[in-house]
């Protein structure tokens, strides 16, 4: 067990899975020199047929992994920013997500699309998008959003071993700043199991990825005034651990949802619908969302911070429910 960063944990998962299964290969732009260090050293270890650098051609990458999976490989594609996946949407949405069903169940497509979302680095609107809801809307794609280094390693391994297309979303702010204990041994984390980051009886906060850090901060502040929040990290959106979320809301009777994505039609909307449907009689207040206020991410860093949910906003949202 060692304390490692999020990017090191991801690197460990890739290294171990590539060593374990020779069908696993990596493909993407600049993955040899690795802009954020996730794939660092893998080209040296596994060679040019296991770590394939491509031209700047996202559609080709997204489609090539589908083709390679069709002939028995287990590709892991990298799209540095989630934004660049927009250039590859046909291959992801019309092809990879649907082939299995359209072909009457015959296609087995063990593909991982790794990509990076999140705000807070002054990369401006095009390079700062959290589009998990787009992909969660499409049947046939599993959606993974790890929050800790430990989860990142375990969930990436599960993604690689899964026989379906998986959208594996990392958070760019967390690569170097999030660090926790990660075993050097092999372990996986099953999809569809939320993590309870903090237990509490008064309110449930469901937070996606880095927003768990914000939620925990808010929970500490609330605790000082006697409000105990339960913080839940779904970890995977598809499949979703609805039982844990609904179970918590039935206990606390109140819920706040926090994500970096735009509020309108964000994943929070789905969560609210599910919670209302399954815990309506238990709710003491309407569910609320704290999210990006439907604005493209501004470059100016003060404005950018205003567009990202803050602990103060979460505290305020909770207090609003307690009245």
């Amino acid at each position: 067990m060692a304390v490692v960063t999020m990017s090191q944990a991801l690197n460990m998962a890739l290294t171990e899975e590539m060593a374990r299964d020779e069908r696993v290969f990596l493909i993407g732009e600049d993955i040899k020199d690795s802009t954020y260090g996730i794939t660092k050293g893998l080209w040296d270890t596994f060679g040019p047929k296991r770590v394939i650098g491509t031209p700047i051609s996202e559609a080709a990458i997204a489609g090539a992994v589908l083709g390679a999976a069709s002939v028995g490989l287990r590709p892991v594609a990298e799209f540095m920013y989630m934004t660049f996946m927009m250039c590859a949407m046909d291959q992801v949405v019309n092809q990879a997500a649907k082939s299995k069903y359209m072909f009457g169940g015959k296609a087995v497509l063990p593909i991982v699309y790794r990509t990076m979302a999140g705000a807070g680095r002054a990369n401006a609107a095009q390079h700062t998008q959290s589009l998990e809801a787009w992909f969660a809307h499409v049947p046939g794609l599993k959606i993974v959003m790890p929050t800790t280094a430990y989860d990142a390693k375990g969930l990436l391994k599960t993604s690689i071993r899964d026989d379906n297309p998986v959208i594996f979303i990392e958070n760019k702010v967390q690569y170097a700043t999030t660090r926790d204990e990660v075993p050097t041994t092999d372990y996986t984390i099953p999809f569809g199991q939320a993590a309870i980051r903090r237990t509490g009886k008064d309110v449930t906060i469901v937070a996606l990825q880095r927003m768990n850090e914000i939620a925990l901060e808010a929970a500490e502040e609330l605790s000082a005034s006697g409000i105990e929040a339960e913080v839940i990290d779904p970890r995977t959106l598809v499949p979703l651990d609805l039982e844990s979320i609904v179970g918590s809301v039935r206990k606390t009777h109140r819920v706040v949802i926090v994500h970096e994505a735009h509020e309108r039609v964000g994943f929070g909307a789905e969560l609210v619908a599910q919670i209302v449907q399954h815990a309506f009689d238990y709710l003491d207040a309407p569910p609320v969302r704290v999210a990006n206020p439907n604005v493209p991410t501004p470059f100016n860093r003060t404005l950018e911070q205003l567009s990202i949910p803050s602990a103060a906003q979460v505290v305020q949202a909770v207090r609003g429910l307690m009245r």
Partner: protein
Amino acid sequence: MATIVSPIEHAVGPAHGSSPTALDRHDLSDSDLIDMYRTMLRIRRFEERVKELFLEARLYGSVHLYIGEEAVATGACKALGEGDVISSTHRGHGHCIAMGLESGPMMAELMGKVTGYNHGKGGSMHIASMDHGMLGANGIVGAGIPISTGAALGFWIQEKANVAVCFFGDGASNQGAFHEGINFAAGLKLPVIFICENNGYAQFQSVKQDLPIEHVATRAISYGIPGVIVQGEDILDVYGAVKEAVRRARAGDGPTLIEAKTYRFEGHFLGDPEPYRTREEVAAARATRDPLKIFGAQLQEMGVASADDLKRIHAQIDEEMDRAVAFGESSPEPAGSVLLTDIFTGADEHGRIV
């Protein structure tokens, strides 16, 4: 001297000879030439200041410098006229300056200030100024190709004599948008000039790995348009080829693909550790392919400017940059209240008409 690689009818310029001919100043007057030198120097000094400020944490964001490539933007934009437009890339500061954008509001934009061209909402990768015909820098590699094609389509529909110039990198030529945009433009003979700035690298990847052919310009053959190679550090070579491509475009003869062989002297972005190339390679390019030094020498050779004249220009540009930095730094931050403005035209952030 330009080299034709796609020998389509009306191909641009004379073919590359074995010995370079005497300096060809085309139709450029002395003051045009000096103006071009000034623009190139303005780009160089602007970028140097940006680097300094970035390293001192006086500005921030994702910043890509144009140092070494100044002759491409400057030579190309000099061939444009009133109402012509360009689309740009993530490496867009040089294109902006060549289109006449001022260094003060540009610097302010890089600092996220309210006086910036985009009021601090865009930053380095998104500077735009419709008043200058600058349709926008772009964070998405290759995205400008369909956009400039569309501007040319607009001119074609409106029967205007204007042209659009599209700047993009060698890496961008591997995007699907490159094929779709150029093929479409060629089919309708739209007035657009595609200028590939081949600086040898797409981020960390050498163009040798990314391109199975030697020249991007060769790809013009498959669209039935002229493909031309110019030396990107030679501003007169760039100007001549673009001038002819603009003439063709205005005459209704359609697009041209021009590949400028150039070299980026700085890292891909500020902070790039550059593991993919040697210091020697960069030093050699700086010594032999510096567009500013080359053009400075050419101006003296042509008797257009003396060493003292150039020195005076340097002093003026240095002062201009002092003013630009001071303007940026003394400008206010945007108020928090503007967060939700500018999302829609004529509507609030919810899309409701106001």
